[in-house]
């Protein structure tokens, strides 16, 4: 009763070169109007969506094609004066996910002064629980994604000391599994997205020493399938966004060379939409800004000359991280 391996076939007709101009057009056009269906229906993730599009454009040096002041003005309106947190969209509720995205955008623009920074710090600190974990907002959902959002936000604002870092590390450590990976809560199954969050967290806090480097790196490099693409968990289909979570994780723990970068490149390039531009999760699917950012960022880690160097911990241009004089830890 052998189960066939889940993978896709890379067909000859799929694109093999980077369609840079098309991607620029794709991102620029996305979000031209709230009356556009895809865009209008996704206002509940707007600020994160802005971060995806904007970072993608900056990685290909076209950030100035977006209306900077409009973006900053929008983020200002999304900050909740009471809690200090930032929401996805005006009149929606503040959340840690969008608070991080907003701070990332403002760091790229070098305009962190545009928001109430003390408010953001107060908000992030208010979400830490006694066991060190973080909730995404005041409604109590705990997840290691939020641990990452918290320390990434605070470190970008140079205020990591606003929370109990040791406790936070303790919680993330308690989410480590038998395979060396991490899940969303203690005893939750390992998942590439959450592994990225936990490694990112440990990289920011300088505590990668707790990682079982080679056990985890082996699990991660086993995510690569014959198509070249990476999946997020065993026996799942490959996906461009998982290619980024796995690749950045391997990069943080110094084992990027444990997978085949040539075949991964081939897979990511095959996920480009030759008509509209943009990347999809898999070849032939509908592209979106989320997969476009992670496709470009993954290609950057693989050393694509046309794309600016990306920082694997923050998923932001490396020069921005340098400008902020941040040195997230990586393992050799």
């Amino acid at each position: 009763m052998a189960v066939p391996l889940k993978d896709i076939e890379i067909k000859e007709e799929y694109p093999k070169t980077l369609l840079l101009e098309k991607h620029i057009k794709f991102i620029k056009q996305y979000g031209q109007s709230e009356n556009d269906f895809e865009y209008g229906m996704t206002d509940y993730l707007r600020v994160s969506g802005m971060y995806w599009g904007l970072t993608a454009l900056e990685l290909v040096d076209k950030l100035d094609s977006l209306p900077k002041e409009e973006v900053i003005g929008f983020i200002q309106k999304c900050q909740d004066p009471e809690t200090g947190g930032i929401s996805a969209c005006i009149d929606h509720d503040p959340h840690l996910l969008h608070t991080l995205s907003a701070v990332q955008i403002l760091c790229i623009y070098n305009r962190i002064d545009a928001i109430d920074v003390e408010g953001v710090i107060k908000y992030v600190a208010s979400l830490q629980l006694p066991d060190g974990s973080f909730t995404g907002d005041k409604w109590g959902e705990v997840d290691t994604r939020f641990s990452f959002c918290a320390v990434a936000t605070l470190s970008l604002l140079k205020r990591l000391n606003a929370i109990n870092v040791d406790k936070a590390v303790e919680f993330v450590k308690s989410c480590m599994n038998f395979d060396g990976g991490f899940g969303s809560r203690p005893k939750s199954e390992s998942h590439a997205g959450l592994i990225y969050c936990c490694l990112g967290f440990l990289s920011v806090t300088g505590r990668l020493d707790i990682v079982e480097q080679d056990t985890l790196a082996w699990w991660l490099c086993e995510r690569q399938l014959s198509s070249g693409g990476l999946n997020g968990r065993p026996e799942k289909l490959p996906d461009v966004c998982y290619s980024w979570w796995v690749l950045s994780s391997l990069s943080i723990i110094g084992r990027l060379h444990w997978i085949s970068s040539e075949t991964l490149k081939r897979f990511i390039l095959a996920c480009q939409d030759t008509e509209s531009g943009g990347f999809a999760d898999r070849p032939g699917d509908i592209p979106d800004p989320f997969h476009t950012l992670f496709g470009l960022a993954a290609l950057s880690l693989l050393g694509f000359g046309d794309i600016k160097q990306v920082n694997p911990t923050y998923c932001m241009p490396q020069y921005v991280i340098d400008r902020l004089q941040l040195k997230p830890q990586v393992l050799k």
Partner: protein
Amino acid sequence: MHGRLKVRTTEEQRLLKEKEQQKKLTAYQTGMKQILSTRNPTSYDPKSFAISAQLLVVNPDIYTLWNYRKEVILLELDKSKSECKDTIIDNGICDEKSQESLDVTKGLIKFLENEIRLTEQCLLANPKSYGSWHHRYWIMEHHPEPNWQNEFELCTKYLTMDDRNFHCWDYRRLILNKIGMSLEDEIKFSTERINVNFSNYSSWHYRSTLRKLDKDSLESEINLIMNAIFTDPADSSAWFYLRWVLSNPEMTEGHRKQLSQTLDQLLELEPDSKWCLLAKCWINGIKKGENMNEDQIEELTENYKKLLILDPLRKGFYSHYLNALESKKLNNA
């Protein structure tokens, strides 16, 4: 934005679709406006409340709407508390003295049951929505008479439909804490799931979280793994579990020998099984601290070289170990 296939359409179809989409978008935007503009801390508009349910069934990721519904539930809980004429116990439940109080409690429970049904509707449409799962748990925590047993059975049902849904496994773990299932039962459950489908990484993972392995359990785990890898040596799940079991300090030389011999048998049947070769490397390479003799180094080197050819994607990984063996050889010399 996952798994949506791009389909070729005619111009006519495209226009038709666009029209439909505009309708949907307008309905969404009008709905959101109605809900957000009537939102206030002291009361709620039943019409907005109903619309928010409709929007969530279509898209459970609109997190602000779940928050809005939680606010409404808190209002209902407060109302129920203040309507209780008798002593209040907890979570808005009334002391069962007067008929009137009983009715208040009944009304509240009916309200919460509706909410639970809504999350079920959302989960059936989208079983991987963080918002729906969290909302469900949140309601249960605020429920005056939570039926955790029912939740537990729901988990078992959902896991039979998709045994890889990690949200559902996580929910199951939360409920276990509430109803205090026995460890034996959960081990039995994971064995059942594994026997239904060896290729179920989630069940193997779950198993690893249940207990620390001791001498006795180690033996039975090794048997389970052997059973799985002989059934389907190409499936990866059991091999990951094996690597973990091998790292257990209770593993004896006897265990290793037994395993090594079984793997040799499997290799005779499946000489190109990369997993089997790799497992042999783990068993022999486990004694890192000790000095390996030349034969052992030679055998390991041979295996890694074979792996390089069998599994070229992970060339970097195998080379890493080959290099380490190379320097060991030099040190020995």
